[in-house]
């Protein structure tokens, strides 16, 4: 209690907000004191507001690039004794920041999106509200069933399509489809300062992202099985794969230059190596029935009656989840920014 006051002090009230225990003397007092209960509930309301704000925080970007971490901490501590010039330290941080990437693909300037709660009328659990686009929601998950013009996305979201719904799916391409000016997303491995591409997605999504770094991929994902040499020892829960997204220049047989532009690193050019084993994904229009059952899909639209999502666009995505449907961004409800949809897609997949 407060000295000189019969009521709980702030510390006791907040402790009860977080860890209410019926055996606690403070809880016993709380049960018998309406004034303290009211006060506690006011703090609970504040706490709920803070938590809602935090829950709306877009996912953290990817970890620092591995090159920035290659020096052992002990070596870094030694170098701190003879403190490097500030400019050099700033450059190290810039490299780290520049190389930071996106577990799942967030971009600069993204706005927050909020998960729709099943408690809110007119919405369905599993849908993600697109911030700044009233009534617009995004659904992401596994395509469980297609019946006529309707699809079921697990977990149990019904998506209705119409003649105006733009539906796309990834299709296999060849390295010759990679041409100058295309925006591509590359997954691969570093080899002598060059990125040997394992997978290249052409105009398939996240066109605003121009980044270099690493990306987290679940070990059980099909992509991870393609790259067992990248598997890290347990108990790490993710694999960290080199990733780059940018615009193609100087495309030749066997290689191209990837040009990255973003506010942190400015302009950077990376040589990307391709081979016959490089998996190339492009995007093609499709009908609903052409989408693969069991595949990952994303749909954006408005909520109709009974919580059905009336999709303006729907896309099958690649196994990594990084290469999402570019058409989502090209055909979007008026007033919705690409960033807002990207953020909702990332949140829905997180």
């Amino acid at each position, binding site marked *: 209690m407060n000295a000189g006051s019969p009521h709980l002090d702030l510390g006791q009230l*907040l402790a009860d907000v977080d860890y209410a225990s019926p055996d606690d003397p403070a809880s016993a007092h709380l049960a018998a004191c309406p004034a303290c209960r009211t006060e506690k*509930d*006011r703090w609970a309301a504040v*706490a709920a507001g803070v938590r809602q704000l935090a829950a709306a925080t877009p996912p953290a970007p990817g*970890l620092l690039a591995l090159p920035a971490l290659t020096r052992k*901490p002990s070596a*870094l501590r030694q170098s701190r004794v003879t403190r490097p010039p500030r400019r050099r330290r700033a450059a190290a941080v810039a490299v780290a*920041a520049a190389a930071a990437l996106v577990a799942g693909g967030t971009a600069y300037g993204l706005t927050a999106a909020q998960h729709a709660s099943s408690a809110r009328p007119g919405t369905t659990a599993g849908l993600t509200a697109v911030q700044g686009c009233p009534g617009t929601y995004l659904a992401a998950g596994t395509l469980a069933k297609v019946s006529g013009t309707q699809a079921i996305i697990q977990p149990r979201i019904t998506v209705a399509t119409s003649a105006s719904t733009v539906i796309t799916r990834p299709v296999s391409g060849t390295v010759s489809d990679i041409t100058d000016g295309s925006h591509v997303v590359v997954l691969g491995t570093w080899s002598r300062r060059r990125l040997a591409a394992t997978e290249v997605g052409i105009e398939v999504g996240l066109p605003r992202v121009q980044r270099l770094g690493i990306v987290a991929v679940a070990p059980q994902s099909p992509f991870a099985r393609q790259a067992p040499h990248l598997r890290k020892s347990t*108990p790490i829960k993710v694999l960290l794969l080199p990733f780059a997204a940018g615009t193609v220049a100087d495309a030749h047989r066997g290689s191209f230059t990837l040009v990255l532009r973003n506010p942190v690193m400015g302009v950077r050019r990376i040589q990307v190596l391709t081979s016959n084993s490089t998996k190339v994904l492009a995007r093609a229009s499709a009908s609903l029935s052409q989408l693969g059952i069991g595949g990952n899909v994303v749909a954006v639209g408005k909520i109709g009656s009974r919580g059905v999502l009336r999709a303006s666009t729907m896309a099958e995505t690649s196994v990594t989840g990084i290469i999402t449907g570019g058409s989502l961004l090209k055909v979007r409800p008026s007033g919705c920014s690409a960033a807002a949809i990207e953020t909702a897609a990332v949140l829905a997949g997180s």
Partner: protein
Amino acid sequence: LSEHLVRARTAVTAGRAAWPQHASSEDADQNGAELLGRIAGGDQAAMAEFYHLHGQVVLAQILLVVQERAVAEEILQDTMLAVWRAAASFRAESSVRSWVISIARRQARDRLRRHRLRLVDQDVLSGQPSADPGPEVLALDRAAVAEVADAIRSLTAAQREVLGLAFGAGLSLPEVAQVLEIPLGTVKSRLAAARTALGRVLQEEGQHR
């Protein structure tokens, strides 16, 4: 009033459910100290796991203060680079969560200083809450969670910061005091002032509706 109390309790439950998956301070601390030991030995996988445990919560806290996504991301990366460098200096005198948030706070302070912004506005903090439930307190009683969340954005950086540490990052009040490097009593008065300011914002917004 009972309706409001039920709503507040529901809101707290909902808020907890919506809090990032890796926000459990206890879980994070249990593994965090061991991870820091491995990080000090140069284990990159441990660094990745540490980031997995703390990154989202730290980002949420930074974003609450700086309110600019790109800046918050950069501060997060600076923070993690600092963790990589300073892992061996962790002495378990504080929880891992409060330790990493302290680092993030220093990084944010440096960044904001460079931008000539003030993290702490003492003038705003000087207001003490009234003992009686004034209109701003009643406005808080009536507000929905989303309205409270919106109103928090209007508070000063220092007020958002202390609320975030106490309710978002899940630190105890003594840990909040440690992170902010202020006495426990000041933490309490800062929290109370933040709540009063929050009620005031809600009251003003209510008048405009």
